[in-house]
């Protein structure tokens, strides 16, 4: 193609690349003037930080798959216990350890995941357990977040002596291994969902507090904070209205990564016999029951293990993807 063009130019003697015959007429030009209205206009639609992150997270296949899976788990946890014909705690000793897809001996309804060592429907237990495990996880993550943001925000914003004292206290609290404190609290308090939430929240907020403090310390010297101060905003307003929204990405990532930890801790405590009191079910309790009969009926453990692992995996992956999506360095 290029070669042909070249020969064309050479072969036509009348061709001139530019007009050298005369001057350009003045009326070829027109004064348009400076359009001061639109000169500085931003042509691209303005995208807020959160919207930009959302757009990017939507493009990530991994994140979308994780979100869809988590949505299924959450919706299932809400609605399945309402529609399943079996009760999660109803025992049927004559119908133990049935394999998957066995019709019930009495009603003929399908036990989709079979029954466990006490003849309880595993499918019903899994979804009821999802309710309990996820409630605990989300509640703890939110409580951690609230305490951590307030503590870290106050400590970072005021700085100086207050910061020093608050950080020393935090250092001591986070120095105590949390699992030991949680176990200790669980022995002393009555067993139940509320207790797990309280026990874990008492120690779990330190990570969030540290993160928020670090961010606030670096943000509070910036101009928009000084501007707010000049206009007479109080400390509470500056922390709540100006600093926290800027730390929001860190907070969201941390909540997402906190949830799988709580799911793990709850399961761990249930394994030690310190979780929620039976006959209530959580994923940890189901796993604990399943491990007892694991050598003979491995499917029971595999089912609940899949639910625990894939949920934890989804939250972890989603957290990683969120970290990338919120990273301003990667913003296009």
């Amino acid at each position: 193609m290029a070669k042909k063009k070249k020969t064309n130019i050479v072969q036509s003697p009348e061709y001139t690349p530019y007009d050298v015959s005369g001057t350009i007429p003045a009326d070829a030009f027109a004064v348009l003037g400076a359009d001061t209205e639109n000169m500085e206009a931003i042509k691209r639609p303005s995208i807020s930080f959160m919207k930009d992150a959302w757009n990017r997270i939507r493009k990530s296949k991994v994140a979308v798959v994780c979100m869809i899976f988590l949505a299924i788990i959450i919706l299932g946890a809400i609605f399945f216990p309402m529609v399943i014909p079996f009760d999660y705690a109803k025992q049927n000793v004559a119908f133990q350890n049935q394999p998957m897809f066995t019709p019930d001996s009495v009603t003929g309804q399908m036990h989709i995941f079979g029954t466990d060592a006490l003849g309880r429907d595993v499918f019903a237990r899994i979804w009821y357990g999802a309710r309990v495990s996820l409630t605990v996880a989300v509640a703890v993550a939110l409580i951690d977040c609230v305490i951590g943001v307030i503590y870290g925000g106050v400590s970072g914003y005021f700085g100086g002596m207050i910061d020093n004292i608050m950080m020393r206290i935090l250092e001591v609290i986070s120095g105590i291994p949390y699992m030991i404190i949680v176990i200790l609290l669980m022995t002393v308090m009555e067993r139940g969902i509320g207790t797990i939430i309280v026990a874990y929240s008492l120690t779990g907020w330190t990570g969030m507090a540290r993160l928020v403090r670090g961010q606030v310390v670096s943000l509070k010297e910036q101009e928009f904070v000084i501007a707010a101060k000049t206009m007479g905003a109080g400390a509470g307003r500056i922390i709540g209205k100006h600093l926290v929204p800027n730390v929001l990405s860190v907070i969201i990532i941390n909540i997402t990564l906190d949830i799988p930890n709580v799911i793990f801790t709850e399961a761990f405590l249930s394994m030690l016999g310190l979780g929620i009191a039976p006959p209530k079910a959580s994923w940890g309790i189901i796993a604990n029951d399943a491990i007892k009969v694991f050598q003979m009926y491995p499917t029971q453990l595999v089912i609940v293990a899949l639910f625990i692992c894939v949920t934890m995996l989804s939250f972890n992956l989603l957290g990683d993807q969120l970290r990338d999506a919120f990273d301003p360095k990667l913003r296009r």
Partner: protein
Amino acid sequence: MANQIRYILKRIVYSLITILVLVVITFLLMQLLPGDPFTGGKALPDNVMAAMKAKYGLDKSVPEQLFQYIANILHGDFGISIPDGRAVSDVIGEAFPVSFDLGIRALIFAFIMGVLLGIVAAVKRGTVWDSLAMFLALIGVSVPSFIMGALLQYFLGLKLYQATGVQIFAIIGWADINSKLLPPFALAFGSMATVSRLMRTSMLDVLSQDYIKTAKAKGLNQRQVVWTHAVRNAIMPVVTVMGPLVAAVLTGAFVVENIFSIPGLGRYFVQSVTSLNYTMIAGTTVFYGAFLIFANLVVDIIYGLIDPRIKLTGRKE
């Protein structure tokens, strides 16, 4: 040097305060419990009860008891395990070495495997090896140790034995070498994942530094660049997580020891928790807590000592 000593002293003071807080919390929580060690058994006559309480110092006021408790702990006396009458310190002395053995194996495994996986993933960034290593790491983060342990027991302990007729991996116990393979692995898997992810990030960071380019420009081959220049520097941040890793491994052992029936302290701890043996719970809690805080302190001090930046300023004088 003066800086380093000040840093170490500061860390020691904090650790002592933390241990003290832990002891006080443990003591107060035990006080909150309803009843005392003598309720629940046979009803005793009042004068016998008073004598028993006096013997164990339970007739004193709470602050006095607290000071007595701290003094006893400083003497290595964690009290008597009420059901079997054994000294808690004896039980700890007997069972902890087993847990320690298990924990050390798990830690070494987690550290070496994690670092290697991280190096491979970083050096072969964007290749199948990278994806494979990071996939393994994700599995490690997402599969709890107790599920890992049970699955290993079933597939490697039971199914492999049934298939080959040779017991390569024992299912339970802690005696021969073949019983010491699966538990450390189950325990280490999660920590290995943490280490490998951290190592990968740290390696990628180091590999993009100018001195790596210099090393390459000097004509060093890939192996020399990676091993003598990159790994040495990249491994530093990994050392900082050793403290939390020790905690993860030790607490993870509570469950792993139960699954594999290993007679370690974790198993005793769990048993005392389920049988509500309060002196044992308090004793082991304080012991575990103090041990972990101490381990954290050691890691911090080691980090302070091996950080090349601190060494560099030391050498100048």
